[in-house]
């Protein structure tokens, strides 16, 4: 298929915490993102998915590992050197209220990326680019003259997407872009992202905690738990045959109108990433855990072509949403 746009190898982000200990927010994550591909990243809060997105964009420096973007190693680029790369990689935020500067009009907000990356653009050209972009994300051109607080959550998220895409980046990191929105608006924004991906040839790293939403938009999905990728596969393969008990539990958490499935309720919270359990990080909440699971950390192993999972019990047959329930709708 296509050459990788983004290649991440053994990426780690550690934070020092009180008592000389270390919080391992991202702990040895590797994946590739091909041009035009949507890679979903799912996990509970605290799984390190937001940190992963920020580190990939070099908004916070990685502790270890390597990030190769468009064939260039960006792991150790200086702030100054990063500025040139930034126009090709952009970010959409979870909270459309906090991510727009309340003191600036929409035109001012959208003008900044153009001023930074296309300084030769004249005033009138800039305005027409802004209006064009607003129409592209489904807003009126006149929205340029308004302020963020005059818009609804979904509209603001469209403004955030317009800001991210106005310089035509190749990579978009969407960090929970729909979880702050009403369900009806969620679908609109997901459809918008799919549409834009098609039209602009965008690659998206789509981060969310809701595996159903991730399944709608992603070509492939990486499941994260306590800073590690525990399973990564094509969306269909993952939904057909999950290979990790955590993935099974995530599927089981999706609301189900029929109520036929037995719920797998995960006990307790995610363990602290400051003192993760020995061996398999998921074993403390895993219904299939055995004493041996506490011995060593399972590594990601290819179980079928392109389908990797990190579990000590490959023989498990896990429940899937496609086997016993009507398939989750895939948009379009």
């Amino acid at each position, binding site marked *: 298929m296509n050459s990788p746009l983004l290649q991440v190898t053994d990426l780690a982000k550690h934070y020092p915490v009180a008592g000389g200990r270390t919080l391992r927010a991202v702990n040895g994550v590797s994946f590739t993102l091909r041009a035009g591909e949507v890679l979903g990243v799912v996990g509970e809060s605290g799984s390190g998915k937001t940190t992963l997105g*920020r580190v990939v*964009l070099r*908004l916070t420096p990685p502790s270890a590992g390597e990030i190769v973007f468009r064939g260039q190693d960006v792991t150790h680029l200086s*702030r100054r050197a*990063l*500025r*040139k*790369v*930034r*126009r090709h*990689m*952009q*970010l959409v*935020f*979870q*909270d459309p*209220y*906090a*991510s*727009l*500067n*309340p*003191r600036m009009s929409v035109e001012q907000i959208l003008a*900044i*990326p153009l001023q*930074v*990356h296309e300084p030769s653009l004249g005033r009138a050209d800039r305005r027409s680019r802004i209006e064009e972009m607003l129409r592209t994300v489904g807003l009126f051109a006149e929205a340029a003259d308004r*302020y*963020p*607080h005059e818009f609804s959550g979904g509209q603001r998220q469209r403004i*955030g997407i317009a*800001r991210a895409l106005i310089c035509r980046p190749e990579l978009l990191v969407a960090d929970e872009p729909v979880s702050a929105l009403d369900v009806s608006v969620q679908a609109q924004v997901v459809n918008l992202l799919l549409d834009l991906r098609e039209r602009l040839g965008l690659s998206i790293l789509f981060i969310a905690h809701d595996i159903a939403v991730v399944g709608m938009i992603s070509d492939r999905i990486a499941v994260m738990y306590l800073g590690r990728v525990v399973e990564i596969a094509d969306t269909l393969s993952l939904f057909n045959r999950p290979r990790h008990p955590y993935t099974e539990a995530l599927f089981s958490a999706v609301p189900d109108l029929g109520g036929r499935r037995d719920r797998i309720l995960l006990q307790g919270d995610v363990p602290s990433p400051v003192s993760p359990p020995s061996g398999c990080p998921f074993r403390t909440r895993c219904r299939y855990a055995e004493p041996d699971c506490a011995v060593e950390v399972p590594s990601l192993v290819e179980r079928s072509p392109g389908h990797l999972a990190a579990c000590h019990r490959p023989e498990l047959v896990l429940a899937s949403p496609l086997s016993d329930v009507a398939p989750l709708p895939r948009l379009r």
Partner: protein
Amino acid sequence: MSAVAPSAAELPPPVLAAPSAARRPALRRFMRHRLAMFGLVAIIVLVVACALGPYLSPYGPLTIDLRHRFQPPFEGRHWLGSDQLGRDLLVRLLLAGRISLTVGFAAMGLSTAVGVVIGLVAGFYGGWVGTALMRFVDAVLSFPAIFLLLTLAALVSPGVLTITLIVALTAWMEVARVVEGQVRSLRERDFAIAAEAIGVSDAHLMLRELLPNIMAPIVVAATLNVARAILLESYASYLGYGIQPPTPSWGNMLNNAQEYLTSAPWLAIFPGAVITLAVTGFNFLGDGLRDALDPRLDVHR
């Protein structure tokens, strides 16, 4: 109005910057703050009187009239009486006000500018630069301001310019701390990260994204700084290290009044009262601005 309180509790935590339309409630809160309104009126009256008053008076501030020495106030030709040289106290008070208020505002401007720059740089870059700057702030803060002021004043020849500089040097630290704290927390906010992801320059991030969102606490700190500067200038001048006679300032008028405290108490009472009025006026104004601009600290209800 009682309906306002519960609905405010349901809203998401106040957005960091009240957007243009939502600034009205701040204005309304400010107008309802009686002490702040009193402070504002007192300051306006003082400024206007000091600016225009001396032109309207028949007496010059340095006009000596030995036949009318120690005139008591509210009788005779001098409204507020006259001093040991027969100079009109009211004119001297207003002229001293020009000096004292000028020093107050200029020192405020200077200290706020210095504080904002240091706070911005320290909060923005953090790391060892931020640590070094903020420990320096702590070090300067640990000197009692009045001793620092007197030490510096003893080293240079006193005058309006030097006293402004010296007062400013002892007053910028609070602003720096406020700005540093705000910048450090705002930097982590999504809109700042968004600007960083776009790749804007550090100057753009600091001046266009962060600074406009911390204007409210800066204005509050600056207002309180005027009061502080007026007080410090008065200290220094009273102790003889500030504005030198015959140029009047509220502080050196008090100094001069000491000798006649029993025989002509009005010479001390009026400058003292004006200093109190100006300082409390600015303090009330600052408190009112704080309450109006930061609804979370609303303690008056």
